[in-house]
């Protein structure tokens, strides 16, 4: 060992020792302020900070999960069940399985179905239009078409259809609920995705009397109650001139849509109907 090597080892070794001593002091004085598991959990979360979980961002959820040591009632819509399972595994907890959900637009007052009666000019935000007037189509509950929901979506999962002037939810919706909060008229609802992405819902939330709502919009729910009678599963509730399909009870039997006189009930992602609708078996061309 020559002189340089010796000096090197001595000086650097001394430095290393000093560093270690300092670090030891740090470790002593610097008691862990935070539960280290918070970091681990936060790491697992997608980091989108969308607020869909109901907490102020991913880290806030992580803190809450660790604090409560339970996953009850907590979910991360963008991350889905996988993430929650991961976290459960990390913390040794059970994750509550949740049915996948998606946002649904409950208005069909397109330019054609609800022709414009006045013109709107000004800031293209539904919030303002809502405070100003009933909407170009005249329906005081219908979609205003300025796209606040589209802007609010962090996942590019909702877009404005040029033809109809209505928002359309794409498949990549993570049901974070941002659009639900953004819509001043409460038109968007988070519903169960349904088997094979099939959904049946009433695409109208107008609570006016049938005649009145019909005057503004061809496809409004007029509150006739026919669907309620048709449903064998008591999945349809009827209140204030409006039918509402409970997605927890609906079996996707497809009986109600045809009976609606205005066509307000929508079915999504079903194969085309066979001439005779009573066949309930799986269609061949799926």
């Amino acid at each position, binding site marked *: 060992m020559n002189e340089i090597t010796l000096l090197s080892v001595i000086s650097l070794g001394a430095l*290393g020792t000093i*560093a*270690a001593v300092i*670090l*030891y002091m*740090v*470790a002593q004085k610097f008691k862990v302020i935070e539960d280290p598991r918070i970091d681990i959990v936060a790491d697992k979360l997608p980091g989108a900070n969308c607020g869909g979980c109901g907490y102020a961002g991913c880290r806030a959820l992580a803190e809450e999960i660790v604090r409560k040591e339970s996953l009850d009632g907590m979910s991360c819509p963008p991350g889905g069940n996988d993430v929650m399972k991961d976290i459960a595994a990390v913390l040794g907890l059970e994750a509550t399985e949740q049915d996948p959900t998606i946002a649904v637009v409950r208005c069909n007052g397109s330019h054609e179905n609800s022709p414009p009666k006045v013109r709107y000019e000004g800031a293209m935000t539904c919030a303002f239009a809502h405070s100003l007037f009933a909407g170009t189509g005249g329906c005081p509950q219908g979609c205003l078409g300025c796209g606040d929901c589209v802007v609010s979506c962090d996942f590019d999962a909702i877009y404005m259809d040029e033809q109809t002037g209505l928002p359309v939810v794409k498949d990549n919706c993570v049901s974070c609920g941002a659009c639900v909060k953004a819509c001043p008229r409460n038109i968007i609802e988070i519903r169960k995705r349904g088997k094979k992405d099939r959904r049946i819902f009433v695409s109208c939330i107008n609570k006016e009397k049938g005649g009145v709502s019909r005057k503004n919009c061809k496809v409004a729910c007029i509150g006739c109650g026919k669907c309620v009678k048709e449903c064998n599963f008591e999945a349809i509730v009827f209140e204030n001139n409006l039918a509402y399909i409970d997605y927890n009870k609906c079996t996707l039997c497809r009986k109600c849509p045809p009976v609606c006189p205005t066509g307000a009930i929508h079915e999504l992602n079903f194969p085309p109907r066979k001439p005779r609708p009573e066949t309930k078996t799986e269609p061949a061309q799926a």
Partner: protein
Amino acid sequence: MNQWKNFSKGLIKDNPVYILLLGLCPALGVTTSAFNGLGMGLATTFVLLGSNIVVSLIKNLIPDKVRIPSFIVIIASFVTIVQLTMEAYMPDLFDALGLFIPLIVVNCLVMGRAEAFASKKDTFSSAIDALGMGLGFALALTMLGSLREILGAYSIFGFKLIPGATDGMLVFVLAPGAFIGMGYLIILFNYLKKKTA
């Protein structure tokens, strides 16, 4: 993990410079020419590879509280090795890269990989990860270097592209060109990432 995926992620999807925005200082500082960029990229790759391997080997022997200082020392050793070797055998490149060689030690990329990957995974994966990330880094630096050399000197790796033309747009050799060039390359990489995803 699929080792090929582990390797290739550093090239585009998780490119350390353009996507993860790590190690920006050397990426901006030394890329006045494609050759310098490549040289710095390879030097960093070597350090990354070496330190990742050593860190993953000794990770279980190091107490948690001195983990980071130990890693720093390991990284710094590899940097010094590079420094000495380069000075001995590639003095011109050494002069061109200047200050940025010792600064590899504080390159967040190196530390980040040691912390996030090598201290948790097995040695082989760590080596592959280091190689992928390092080559991604080298790719990024070479690209920026090429861009700046092409625009700033109308040449690439020293070959004149336009015979007779002497100077290019000098901005690109200077500081502003580095920032601007990287800004637009990031857009390109974001686009590529989207395309490949």
